[in-house]
């Protein structure tokens, strides 16, 4: 393994060592002419992530950084589902991609929190290379955990809930099956593909999209999906595990496969 001699000699510096000037090594003399440059180290994320946004105001805007440029058009357009995905993605704008803890916070500190978004707006935070559409290969067999929260009661909570949801996503701690140390396959792929916050006239919705959704007899997968849901409810959103959440404009933390969502009929939901 390659050893970074410079890092060994100088000590590895992170943003905590020198927040304002942390890539420049300053000797004790304070003499600027004696400065030597030492690299600064950042904390890489498990996966790179892309933030997307849409609202009524983004409709019809044609920007340089729209999904169109990042979307594999030619092969996708050959199927009806690809055409549907492209229609869905048309108004969803790519905001930025990042792959370190430090970059995430730089973005967080310069973007509008959900409580201040206009109505009918959505942030989609997805792993790089996965578009926030059912039709993406990573999503097509999956589903989502979601909770709907009445706006009036939750305007002061929603920003923290969304932040904690994003942190669990980028920290890659949403899938306790992979973090408990009991996983039979240590490098099994995470179930999570992305997280979404939606603002509507009377409520907020938070969602976690998964790669897979259990069919009737897949007990192992069902248990793993339910563990994600319980973690979301208790550790991320901060509710008691047994707490009842449904009410006017409010839902429980519930799971629905994308295939069942598409049917728009009465589908069986998993509730935690």
């Amino acid at each position, binding site marked *: 393994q390659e050893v970074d001699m410079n890092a060994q000699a100088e000590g590895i510096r992170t943003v905590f060592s020198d927040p304002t000037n942390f890539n420049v090594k300053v000797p004790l003399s304070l003499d600027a002419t004696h400065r030597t440059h030492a690299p600064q180290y*950042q904390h890489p994320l498990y996966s790179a992530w892309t933030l997307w946004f849409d609202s009524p105001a983004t409709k019809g805007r044609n920007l340089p950084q729209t999904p169109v440029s990042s979307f594999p058009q030619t092969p996708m357009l050959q199927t009806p589902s690809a055409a549907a995905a492209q229609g869905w993605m048309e108004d969803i704008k790519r905001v930025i991609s990042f792959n370190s803890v430090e970059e995430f*916070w730089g973005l967080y500190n310069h973007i509008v929190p959900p409580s201040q978004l206009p109505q009918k707006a959505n942030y989609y935070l997805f792993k790089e290379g996965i578009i926030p559409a059912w039709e993406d290969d990573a999503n097509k067999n999956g589903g989502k955990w979601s909770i709907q929260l009445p706006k009036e009661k939750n305007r002061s909570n929603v920003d923290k809930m969304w932040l904690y949801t994003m942190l669990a996503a980028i920290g890659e701690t949403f899938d306790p099956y992979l973090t408990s140390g009991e996983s039979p396959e240590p490098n099994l792929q995470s179930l999570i593909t992305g997280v979404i916050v939606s603002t509507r006239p009377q409520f907020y919705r938070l969602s976690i999209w998964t790669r897979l959704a259990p069919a009737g007899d897949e007990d192992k997968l069902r248990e793993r999906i339910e563990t994600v849901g319980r973690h979301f409810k208790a550790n991320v959103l901060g509710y008691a595990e047994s707490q009842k959440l449904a009410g006017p404009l409010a839902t429980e933390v519930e799971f629905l496969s994308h295939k069942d969502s598409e049917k728009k009929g009465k589908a069986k939901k998993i509730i935690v």
Partner: protein
Amino acid sequence: GPLDINAAKRDMSTPPLSALATARNIERLQDIEYPEGVRSPREDLNKDAKDGKFRYDRDFLMQFMQICKEKPPHLPPLDILGIEPVDQSTFSSMTRTSSGRHR
């Protein structure tokens, strides 16, 4: 060692190079010595970590909130994307019934 307050105050006259633009990725979390008062990432989350792929707990991540304030150089102007904060006081008069686009 402890957080170097003097280093943070030093040389405010010339803006530093973008630190993130020149930063390298940490390859081994064990190599990092955090200043006093800063928590390390939870070790149990990274027992099998390899290829510089790490998991981070929320308490660890939250410590960066007040420190990493550099605007990402590639962040487009938010108003161009339609990301514009609304005045909260106008909410009550805007209540509508439509639920908007949804999946």
